[in-house]
């Protein structure tokens, strides 16, 4: 059986819908992982000991195990304790939490790199601890760590392919649907890879723009 890419255009609509879902899941999980990362970073650095240490254990566990295993846990595990999430939501939560832990690691180092005087100055001016973190320390920390967080977002886009195994009809699963009708895996997986590559280029361009704007704002 040779290769015949002429079967692909007939399924362009299926692939395009899948690509839109991939973009939707990537963006939702990216937003969740960004704000989750900030919250996790603050918890890991400033929360009381009884919260901080269990949290660090949780973070350590999340960073040391495969994303696919975590997706299985969230999707199949929650069903068995009676929480039946739609696959899309489970996928966003799984991807979002996984990358929130990675982002938190980066944001923590960003927070620690903010000059101590900023914190002391804000406290002296009468801001509470929370206000100081929210209005003074975190905004400066986040700016300095945008490039590494951007790298995580690119990794997130590619890892979004994993949610196909829990049944989210994104790009990977859409190409599998086309394959099950045409029996042409090579053509459709290559087509899917090309779509991911294009989305990736768009994401990289978007991230570069954000980075430039932040450079200008400084």
């Amino acid at each position: 059986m040779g290769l015949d890419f002429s079967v692909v255009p007939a399924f362009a609509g299926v692939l395009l819908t899948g690509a839109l879902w991939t973009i939707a899941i990537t963006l939702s999980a990216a937003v969740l992982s960004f704000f989750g990362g900030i919250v996790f970073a603050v918890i890991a650095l400033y929360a009381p000991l009884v919260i901080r240490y269990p949290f660090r254990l949780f973070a350590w566990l999340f960073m040391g195990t495969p994303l696919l295993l975590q997706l299985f846990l969230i999707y199949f595990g929650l069903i068995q304790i009676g929480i039946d999430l739609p696959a899309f939501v489970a996928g966003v939560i799984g991807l979002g939490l996984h990358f929130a832990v990675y982002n938190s690691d980066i944001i923590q180092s960003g927070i620690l790199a903010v000059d101590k005087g900023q914190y002391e100055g804000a406290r002296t001016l009468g801001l509470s601890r929370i206000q100081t973190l929210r209005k003074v320390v975190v905004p400066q920390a986040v700016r300095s760590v945008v490039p590494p967080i951007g790298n995580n977002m690119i990794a997130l886009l590619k890892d979004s392919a994993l949610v196909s195994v829990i049944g989210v009809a994104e790009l990977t699963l859409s190409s599998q649907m086309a394959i099950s009708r045409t029996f042409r895996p090579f053509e459709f997986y290559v087509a899917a890879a090309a779509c991911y590559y294009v989305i990736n280029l768009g994401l990289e361009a978007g991230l570069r723009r954000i980075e430039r704007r932040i450079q200008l704002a400084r």
Partner: protein
Amino acid sequence: MLRVFPFFLQAAWVTIQLSVLSCAMGLVCGALGAAARLSRSPALRFTGATYVSVIRGTPALIQVFILYFGGPQIGIQLEAFEAGVLALGFNIGAYMTETMRGAIISVDRGQNEAARTLGLSRFETFRSVILPQALRLMIRPLGVNINALIKGTALVAAISVVELTYTAQRYIGSTYKPFEMFFLAGSIYMVIIYVTGLGVSWLDRRVALK
């Protein structure tokens, strides 16, 4: 939980084999890729850059699928395990290419110039001056790549290789104990990654300048 433990250990052995074999292949691809990207020939540089860009720009899962399900169409018929090793190794090789290239170009330029001035050939300079210094710089970042690779081996569960994640998923289905199975598989991954990390630190200390 005790009853399923032997199956998890067997699966862990498969995960270790996958990791070691694809790591070896990744190091070879990485070295070739870095050599191509740093070579004087534009054609080789272009090939290296394309390899890195295409592999890093598309999901590893799709790469595994292309090789395993698409391979037979172009005459490559592989067992799931073999396809997994080849795809994972080729994938991590692209990341290792960038790690190795980064380490090589971060060796001070003056080292190259001085060695060439002293009469060493381009090759001799690379082998006895640049490479020994670059190797020291690349051990830790390669350790990060290997860490990602070990977790990445979970992907081949999707082509039914009976490794840790596949086994965990199977027993989540049959025992209805998702959290126990997750902790069992998760802690085995942690042990593998921890021991690998110790090995990397040991190697890093061994080659450190004293």
